[in-house]
């Protein structure tokens, strides 16, 4: 990624879409930059697909403006917009061969035979379907049909490629592979990709920037690691990744340190300020993988080495009430002395790490002072 300022290719300005009295998209403004892999992430029914369909022209905004490459899209039908879409069902034409499917847009645009053939071959190579020209869609797997849909859109050399839940119909292995391939493909062709998904793993692994949508509004717009490590609110913290959230009161807030007193988790210390009013009700979010787990007493040395909080802070005791072994990591459900529950994950660095703790073991936990996130909303 270059750091040169990029110009926005899509500008969404105060866009609202109402279906009857329900606002599916509620006063959304955001810029999508040229050449980026942009992801609209949110739970089903949050309005992300409606937003995508408004960019494509299949829905018209009730209010607001959408500009593509500086041009107002009001009154411009889908077949005249410089964007192409890969549909959730792929919508490959079943009565046409792969080559005819891919060539469809070019033929309508009036491109001549020789060039069509060359560009079809090029597009199929791009999606690794070289040699499949004469296949019929019903002779192909779902993953292959998706590649046909991709080639069919990419051949049009759109300014923006829109993808509606591109990986939702694939099995887990294929999905992981396609995540990489899509990112690679985007890098290769340099076209702006805008993807809609409800899957946070998908969003984190592919996106250069993610807009988290909740109830028709943008909850947060950030890069993947910022979104994960610095969620702006409880919805984002909870929706992206898994998280422990505790209510508390802000007891100390200075430029270089802060403390929150949580009835559930104990005293939480942070090595940075949070700019909230003293005594305010806040929430503390703590990711399961950022918590160290050790046998009480034995962990003292470990704690001393890693501890960067005053005594009695960032520390909890509890008892393991549940665990699930996932191979690479083990998840623990821990009942704290306060009666609250805490989810902790632990990487299985050696083959026998999962044997260290088991049900009903008494454990101690601590976390670093830069791990918790204080959320005001």
């Amino acid at each position, binding site marked *: 990624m270059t750091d040169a300022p990029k110009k926005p290719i899509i500008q969404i300005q105060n866009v609202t879409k109402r279906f009857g009295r329900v606002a599916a998209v509620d006063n959304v403004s955001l810029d999508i930059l040229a050449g980026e892999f942009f992801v609209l992430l949110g739970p089903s029914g949050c309005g992300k697909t409606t937003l995508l369909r408004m960019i*494509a022209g299949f829905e018209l905004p009730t209010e607001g403006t959408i500009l593509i490459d500086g041009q107002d899209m009001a009154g411009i039908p*889908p077949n005249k917009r410089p964007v192409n879409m890969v549909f959730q069902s792929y919508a490959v034409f079943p009565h046409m061969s792969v080559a005819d499917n891919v060539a*469809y847009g070019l033929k309508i645009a009036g491109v001549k035979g020789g060039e069509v053939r060359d560009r079809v071959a090029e597009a199929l190579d791009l999606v690794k379907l070289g040699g499949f020209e004469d296949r019929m869609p019903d002779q192909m797997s779902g993953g292959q049909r998706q590649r046909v849909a991709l080639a069919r859109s990419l051949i049009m050399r759109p300014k923006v490629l829109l993808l509606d839940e591109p990986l939702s119909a694939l099995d887990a292995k294929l999905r992981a592979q396609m995540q990489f391939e899509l990112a690679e493909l985007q890098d290769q062709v340099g076209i702006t990709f805008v993807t809609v998904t409800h899957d946070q793993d998908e969003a984190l692994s592919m996106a250069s920037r993610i807009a988290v949508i909740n109830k028709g509004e943008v909850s947060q717009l950030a890069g993947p690691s910022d979104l994960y490590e610095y969620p702006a609110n409880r919805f984002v913290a909870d929706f992206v990744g898994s998280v422990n959230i505790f209510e508390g009161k802000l007891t100390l807030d200075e430029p270089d340190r802060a403390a929150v007193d949580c009835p559930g988790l104990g005293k939480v210390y942070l090595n940075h300020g949070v700019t909230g009013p003293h005594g305010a009700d806040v929430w503390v979010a703590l990711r399961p993988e950022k918590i160290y787990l050790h046998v009480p007493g034995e962990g003292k040395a470990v704690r001393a080495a890693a501890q960067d909080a005053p005594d009695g802070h960032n520390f909890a005791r509890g008892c393991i009430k549940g665990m699930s072994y996932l191979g690479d990591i083990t998840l623990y459900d821990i009942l704290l002395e306060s009666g609250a529950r805490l989810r902790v994950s632990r990487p299985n660095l050696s083959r026998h790490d999962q044997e260290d703790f088991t049900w009903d073991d008494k454990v101690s936990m601590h976390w670093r002072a830069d791990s918790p996130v204080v959320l005001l909303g």
Partner: protein
Amino acid sequence: MALFARTPLAPLEYSRTLWMRAWVGLVMLFLYAPLIVLMIFSFNDSKRNVVWRGFTTKYYEKALGNDVLVEALVNSLTIAALATIASLILGAVAAVMLWRFRFPLKGAVDGTISLPIIVPEICMGVAFLIFFAKWLEWPTDLIWPFNLGAIIIAHITFCFPFVTMVVRSRLASFNREQEEAAKDLGAGEWGVFRDVLIPHMKPALVAGALLSFTLSLDDFVITYFTSGPDTITFPVKVYSMVRFSVTPEVNAASTLLILLTIVLTAVALKLQGVKAIAETH
């Protein structure tokens, strides 16, 4: 003996049980025995055609040499072909309209469109008689093929609702994302219709055409009331011949018609693939 299976029956494998096979055999017998008897007796060397008196093909020569019968057959085929083409266009357009658009009185249109299927044929026949003869005063002395006009119009009336029904049920399985994909790639409304919607409807159009053609070809009641004094169609001619006696000539002509229908059906199935047609029903 395949009938008494050695390998044990799977739970839903009824097609291998004896009683199911016997039942299917009986159904087939009831369906096709009359037709087969008719075909066999077209080769019977007997004028009265009650008992078998030996093999001959002379009644085929006689049937094909019967100018009125041949004229009736040509008339019937012409009517069926023209009525099918018109029904196909009308029926498909009506189906797309009902599927695609919302308009005032849609429910009423939807209901009345299939009325010709429900109304007893005899009523339709009488209605057409009054409509053409008394109300329109349709001329009966036009030259061929215009003398068939009234019959063709009447046939279209009861054929196109069938096309509409078949095409509509096919359209119900259409994935709207395909339409959007075509638009997204630059197609206009007509392009979507030509490149996506018509190919999707094709099996239903073939099935609808087959239905229309056969319905028109063997229609007796409505045709009888609609045809003028000088126009004759195949079923009407056969009826008038049978009034005197069922000669092997009638059998021969019917056999030719059955063969024609079988060939047409086979061609249609071949064109479309059996699977695609079966899907629409």
